[in-house]
């Protein structure tokens, strides 16, 4: 059977990652907000059950990390640390190990970045790091592409979730390759799939959810909105709408028009059309 003919398996209405059921299908980043207060309000408005954080160098006698952690812990969302900026498997592995100790979680959003222009994943380094981290007990959330071969390798490495990009990080371009993403959804009907990166508008998120994607991870589209708190609420509504539409079952598109109003009983139906 052609992979595209396979429909995604019926999914529960709640999103679960590594056996943990989550209150929302939105995962929200914590960077680039106008202020910590607005970030906290946006997370609340988004209803996100997972927030992403990074690790960065701490200044001597600095307490920036501690203050940030206090703020994050008050959000009552689960913390997903990332390996953003890592260029090799080795860097990503060390960062993941530091994150596990610092944040007391074995969850890691694994990023191995191939180049600075597109910030696209280095799939070879990603698979290498995913294998090592999974063996070490990590629950890996890999930032990947729609490449099916790499996805198979990530699953074989122990990943129970995949996070393909919609478009390059921070670009806001939406779903650059809808065909590839539909293929991926059809090819892995039982694997939780999260669109990570590139989502710029609630309509992008809704489109991904209508395809059957399980969740959306985004940051810039909310943080850089004119009103991040309202935009967070807009994304929550769009993701909910898209998911509900997917579960309801979308109509098949048709090539030609077909009247929605019944034809039978149409007045004047038996008369020849007149121009005036």
């Amino acid at each position: 059977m052609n992979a595209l003919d396979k429909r995604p398996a019926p999914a529960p209405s709640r999103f679960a990652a590594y056996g943990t059921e989550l209150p929302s299908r939105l995962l929200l980043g914590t960077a680039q907000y106008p202020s910590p207060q607005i970030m906290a309000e946006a997370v609340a408005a988004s209803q996100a059950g997972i927030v992403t954080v990074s690790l960065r160098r701490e200044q001597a006698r600095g307490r920036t990390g501690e203050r940030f952690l206090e703020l994050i812990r008050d959000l009552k969302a689960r913390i997903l640390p990332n390996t953003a900026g890592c260029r090799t498997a080795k860097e990503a592995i060390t960062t993941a190990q530091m994150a596990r100790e610092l944040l007391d979680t074995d969850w890691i959003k694994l990023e191995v970045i191939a180049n600075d222009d597109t910030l696209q994943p280095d799939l070879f380094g990603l698979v290498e790091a995913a294998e090592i981290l999974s063996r070490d007990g990590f629950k890996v959330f890999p930032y990947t592409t729609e490449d099916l071969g790499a996805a198979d390798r990530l699953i074989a490495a122990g990943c129970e979730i995949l996070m393909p990009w919609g478009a390059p990080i921070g670009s806001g371009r939406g779903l650059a390759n809808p065909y590839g993403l539909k293929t991926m959804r059809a090819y892995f009907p039982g694997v939780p799939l999260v669109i990570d990166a590139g989502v710029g508008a609630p309509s992008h998120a809704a489109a991904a959810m209508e395809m059957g994607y399980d969740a959306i991870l985004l940051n810039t589209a909310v943080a850089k909105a004119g009103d991040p708190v309202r935009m967070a609420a807009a994304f929550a509504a769009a993701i909910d709408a898209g998911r509900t539409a997917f579960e309801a079952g979308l109509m098949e598109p048709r090539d030609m028009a077909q009247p929605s109003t019944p034809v039978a009983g149409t007045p004047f139906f038996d008369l020849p059309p007149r121009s005036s």
Partner: protein
Amino acid sequence: MEKSTSEFRIHLNGESVATKTSTLDALLVEKGYADAKVATAVNGTFVPARNRAAKALSDGDHIEVVSARQGG
């Protein structure tokens, strides 16, 4: 007690600094990280907090001291 050694230079979060301390644990105290909630790596390899006291430092070591930050 911390054994006193001659001064040498290390790279601490990308900056070249002098130290006389011989272990990672002592370095963190010397540089003002004593009670900070941080994670550490030496020459690209993670050093768990419980191993810092036993982690000897050498001239030219690259040491990373990190904490949580905003991220996407």
